[in-house]
């Protein structure tokens, strides 16, 4: 059984409409853009493995909720970042790891996710964490993660998808839009 990444991403925006959402390069960003291209979407066009740290930094700069939509391939590049997150433990940070088991953007090659328990790794780093494999369970786990008094992670098992939608290509435009929205400098 797997959850639906599109439905789960929509659930994130429904549960936390004011959240700054930091999306990993590739599928996480494409699905987010497809669900809704909003000013507070920080799509990554590169820097794989740095998605969760970007969310951590944003959570240090705003009192609004910050949600990371990471991928299994990116998270595997930087599991040590979970220890860093725990070191700060901001209560407004929720991390979602969409685990489709493959490097979808580079051609669908397998990752080591099949033998990695992301929620257990997060718990071993001191974080609150849960694994889900249905959209309904994701919605409940995400609500808990947002409500948790500290950073929390939801590992969400999904099927690989290939959305056609793309975020804006202009990276500087993306960051300006998010920054203006978070700092109240919107025109």
């Amino acid at each position, binding site marked *: 059984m797997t959850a639906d990444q599109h439905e789960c991403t929509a659930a994130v925006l429904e549960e936390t409409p004011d959240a*700054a959402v*930091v999306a990993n390069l590739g599928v996480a960003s494409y699905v987010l853009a497809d669900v809704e291209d909003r000013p507070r979407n*920080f799509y*990554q*066009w*590169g*820097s*794989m*493995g*740095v*998605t*969760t*740290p*970007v*969310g*951590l*930094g*944003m*959570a*240090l*700069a*705003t009192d609004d909720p*910050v949600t990371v939509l990471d991928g299994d391939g990116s998270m595997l590049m*930087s599991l*040590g*970042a979970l*220890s*860093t997150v725990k*070191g*700060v433990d901001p209560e407004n940070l929720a991390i979602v790891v969409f685990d489709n088991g493959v490097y979808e953007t580079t051609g669908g090659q397998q990752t080591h996710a099949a033998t990695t328990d992301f929620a257990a790794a997060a718990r071993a780093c001191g974080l609150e964490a849960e694994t889900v494999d249905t959209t309904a369970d994701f919605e409940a786990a995400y609500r808990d993660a947002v409500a948790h008094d500290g950073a929390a992670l939801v590992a969400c098992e999904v099927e690989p998808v290939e959305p056609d939608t793309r975020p804006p290509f202009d*990276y*500087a435009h*993306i*960051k300006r839009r*998010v*920054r203006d929205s*978070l*700092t109240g400098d919107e025109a």
Partner: protein
Amino acid sequence: MSEDTWATETVDALSRAGVDLAVHLPDSSIDPLTDAFEAHDDVESVLVSREEEAVGVLSGAWVGGRRGALVCQSSGLANTFNALGSLSLPARIPFIGLVSRRGDLGEFNLAQVPMGYNLPEVLDDIGLRNHVVEDRDEVAERTHMAALSAFSTETPYVVMLDTTVIGYKSEADE
């Protein structure tokens, strides 16, 4: 200038430039800087597990309205290059880097040489502005100027501190 005055003055100067976040991974040579950041009332210090994370944390913090400094060793900055090249530079997200430059005068460890000695050229190659400071008396002012330019132009800037500023390990003399 006394042993650690340069570090305190540098952190004060960065605070005047609006820096309120220091993201670091330790190195004995820059302990005076990380200590000065941690002692400063207006600066929050965050320890990362790998330097590339620091670029992410500083980028997210800037997008949220803060100004931050990366403090690490030259070998650590080498760990950040994909984030520099695919986040900081194309998105134009600034931070000020304060990096101890190993691999040159007094260096005993060949493993520090390829990245440390050549770091200025490597940064130039990816278009990331940088400056090497060799005199303790110049660290605070030049770092302040570098920070002002970084945040004004919305591009990262790395200031490297040579062993004439931070000292070197005694193994080369044994």
